């Protein structure tokens, strides 16, 4: 309690108005109670419940089939194989992505690597190549790329940016003073980097690894291309060829359980590894390290990585666009229409997800209590529910009770919102944390009413975070395949599903290529903005408007 009072006196401006039941009661009696965030709290609770509903639906669905039958589905050698396939892939790819991502981040941020500014951008871009496009380009050119090792290669190339991006930002933000202090205490440069910068970035690294792991559990298209069986491909198999929704939802339960284990493990480690820089002291720039004789091999390594993950798929797509006869098959919808639908659904999903993230972020940041933090964290469980499971849950609801929603655009947008809400929340939360309530108070003292302050101060301060959240969700929705395949409205094709329709059957690479190219182009802009946002977030400089300048 005394800490809180000191914080209040120190002028941190945190809302300390309603701590302690006795204090609030006394204040309530005297009519001086600060209005509690009841509206905000109730809205947030409703949002959290809606977000967690798919989990309940899946359980309900499986329960309907009967727990005995559920167990008979799970207790099969087939499921053991799936489990083994999934776990060994997740472990190896996560490890490789961590090593590759951290190494690349170190090279671009801390050394004099030739052209490191350019590489820093190019290393992020591979994420715009959807997993199923990358897998398709590799396996169509090199048929040997398939199965376990094929999946390891392709998934590492696709997912390392999830580690690279936060690690690069963390290295850039690391205080050189701390490493210097460590060297002053007798550590070598290498040891100081490991024990200070890497050690402090541990929770960042774990966060990246978590995203890699969850993505691996959720992906479908890429594994189908590579003929590698995981839970997702098995679930699709049950649905589309065996028409066994009960079996599919039983398998989904196992998949969700795996994801929850991953999420829980990360949370356990993150709690211990929480570190912050002390004080708002100005930071000196770091002196990059000379690579010496290792300069050329490092350059070759980075170039190879970018070449494999970005250059190769882009080249293959371009090749097929030029060489392949794209007129081989009549398209269900034209390229333009597919792009339009993709943009529309993704934009709506991004808009709704961002809007829903705001109340929860405000509640957790402005009114930090145990229950509000728990509420915020509970929504992250959604991240552990793979797209196929959310798709199944929504199909279940629509087919049972809300028939009018079945195969409606609304349902697909809802799926995007559910799936990508946590991404939006991360972005919104960090900017809410920086939109200090003290600034709002100052604005009030200058004669502006509460709503005027929200418009003229709070909203502009939140804008970069809201924009980042929007980009995050939009990008993810554009390249989403799994849930889209399940929920796409009748007679509609998005870029992803149309690409898939052509590429999966191997009918016409030439016809598929333009769809892949359009998807990549549509994702490049959000990825670029995201990269900028990560810089800002970790550098903690107030000049955030530059993100907006990019847009205008």
């Amino acid at each position: 309690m005394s800490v809180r009072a000191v914080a209040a006196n120190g002028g941190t401006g945190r809302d300390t108005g309603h701590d302690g039941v006795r204090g609030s009661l006394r204040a309530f009696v005297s009519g001086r109670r600060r209005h509690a965030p009841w509206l905000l709290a109730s809205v947030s609770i409703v949002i959290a419940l809606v977000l967690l509903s798919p989990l309940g639906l899946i359980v309900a669905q499986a329960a309907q089939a009967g727990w005995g039958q559920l167990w008979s589905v799970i207790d099969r050698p087939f499921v053991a194989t799936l489990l083994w396939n999934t776990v060994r892939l997740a472990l190896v790819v996560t490890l490789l992505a961590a090593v590759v991502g951290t190494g690349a981040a170190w090279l671009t941020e801390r050394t004099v690597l030739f052209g490191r500014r350019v590489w820093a951008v190019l290393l992020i871009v591979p994420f715009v190549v959807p997993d199923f496009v990358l897998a398709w380009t590799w396996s169509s050119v090199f048929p040997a790329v398939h199965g376990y090792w094929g999946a390891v290669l392709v998934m590492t190339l696709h997912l390392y940016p999830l580690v690279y991006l936060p690690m690069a930002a963390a290295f850039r933000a690391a205080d050189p003073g701390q490493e210097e202090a460590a060297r002053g205490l007798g550590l070598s440069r290498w040891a100081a980097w490991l024990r200070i910068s890497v050690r402090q970035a541990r929770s960042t690294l774990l966060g990246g690894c978590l995203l890699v792991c969850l993505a691996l559990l959720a992906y479908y298209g890429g594994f189908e291309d590579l003929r590698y069986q995981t839970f997702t491909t098995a679930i699709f198999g049950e649905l589309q060829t065996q028409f066994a929704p009960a079996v599919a939802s039983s398998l989904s339960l196992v998949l969700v359980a795996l994801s929850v284990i991953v999420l829980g493990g990360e949370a356990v480690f993150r709690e211990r590894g929480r570190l912050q820089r002390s004080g708002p002291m100005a930071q000196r720039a770091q002196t990059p390290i000379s690579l010496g004789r290792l300069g050329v091999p490092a350059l070759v390594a980075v170039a190879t990585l970018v070449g494999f993950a970005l250059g190769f798929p882009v080249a293959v797509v371009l090749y097929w666009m030029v060489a392949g006869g794209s007129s081989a098959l009549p398209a269900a919808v034209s390229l333009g229409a597919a792009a339009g639908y993709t943009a529309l659904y993704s934009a709506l999903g991004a808009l709704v997800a961002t809007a829903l993230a705001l109340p929860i972020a405000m509640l957790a940041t402005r009114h930090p209590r145990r229950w509000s933090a728990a509420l915020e964290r509970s929504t992250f469980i959604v991240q552990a529910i793979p797209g196929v499971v959310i798709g199944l849950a929504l199909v279940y609801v629509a087919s049972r009770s809300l028939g009018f929603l079945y195969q409606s655009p609304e349902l697909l947008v809802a799926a995007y919102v559910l799936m990508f809400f946590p991404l939006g929340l991360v972005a919104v939360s960090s900017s809410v944390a920086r939109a200090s309530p003290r600034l709002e108070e100052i604005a009030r003292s200058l004669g502006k009413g509460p709503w005027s302050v929200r418009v003229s101060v709070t909203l502009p301060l939140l804008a970069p975070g809201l924009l980042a959240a929007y980009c995050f969700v939009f990008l993810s929705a554009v390249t989403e395949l799994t849930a889209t395949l399940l929920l796409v409205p009748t007679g509609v094709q998005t870029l992803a599903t149309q690409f898939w329709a052509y590429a999966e059957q191997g009918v016409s690479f030439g016809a598929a290529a333009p769809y892949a190219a359009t998807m990549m182009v549509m994702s490049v802009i959000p990825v670029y903005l995201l990269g900028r946002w990560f810089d800002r977030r970790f550098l903690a400089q107030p000049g955030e408007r530059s993100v907006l300048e990019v847009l205008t």
Partner: protein
Amino acid sequence: MSRIACKGIWKSFGNTRVLEGLDLEVPDGAVVTVLGASGSGKTTLLRLIAGFERPDSGTILIDDEVVDSARHFVAPERRRIGYVAQEGDLFPHLTVARNIGFGLARRERTSGRIEELLELVGLKGLGGRYPHELSGGQQQRVALARALAPHPRVVLLDEPFSSLDASLRASLRFDVMRILREQRATTVFVTHDQAEALSVADLVGIMSGGRIRQFAPPEELYSRPIDPTVAQFLGEANLLRGRAARGAVETALGTLPLGDGNRSSLVGPVLVLVRPEQISIQRSGRVPVGPGAGEGATGRVIHREYYGHDCVVLVSLDGAEPAVRVRCPGQAPVEVGDAVALQVTGAVVAWPAEPSGDPLRR
């Protein structure tokens, strides 16, 4: 301009009491500093006056208008208060000019008021910059201009210079106080820096235990503190045990005359305040006997600190008591180890020694 009155203010955060029946009256146009240790509730006091927080009980008036009581509450935007926070808290998304113009009506923004304020705070031509392109001192100047722009009734300053380095702090403080005086703004300035509190204020309030312990002009506060705690808070203080009788007090530094405040009333064991600059020091054997000087004491120099314009010498007295601090102008006439004679000039302040709560024991 305006008066502020805080009457019987109580405020707790959870189970921690911050203000316990605080009273404060700020006269029209005065510059008042509130001096207190960190955590003493200074910032809370300002936030209550500004309307950012509400007290648990008590009344706050500005110009006889009740702005906060059990029944009335005037929202911050209706109080016409200028608030300058520790870190400036400029709006990062607005330029300097738009920060300053934030509290102005649209037509005032184009009336030259912003340029006028930029010039006032010495930042002419920087209106197009963003806050992060300014130094810390410049940011505080903008924060002041922003607070003054809408002609506030009262200006509240929450340790506005504490995040700046020492030399910048002194010159900025000089400028800011000159501007506030020119504007004849009623000002409440909270700080934990006693030199700052004494140098800028018409009236100083010493805050501790959730109340204002003493509220007086700086000279009075320094020469006649009401109790030993206040004495120690303001500047360096030697607190000696003594015995008072007939308008004088017997101490280890000799028999010293009591000041006007407590000449006759005090009898028996007392605590005596002797400021370090009241003591003159000589090598032993050469004690001048001047008018008003007591009989003196002898001791040995155990430590010396040199400050350029003066120096402080720590002397261990022969006989008893803790060592005393002596301030002497210019170069110290003594070395560590010297045997010295001490003599007190002028009257001293004393309080009855309490059996408990003796500050010498802390």
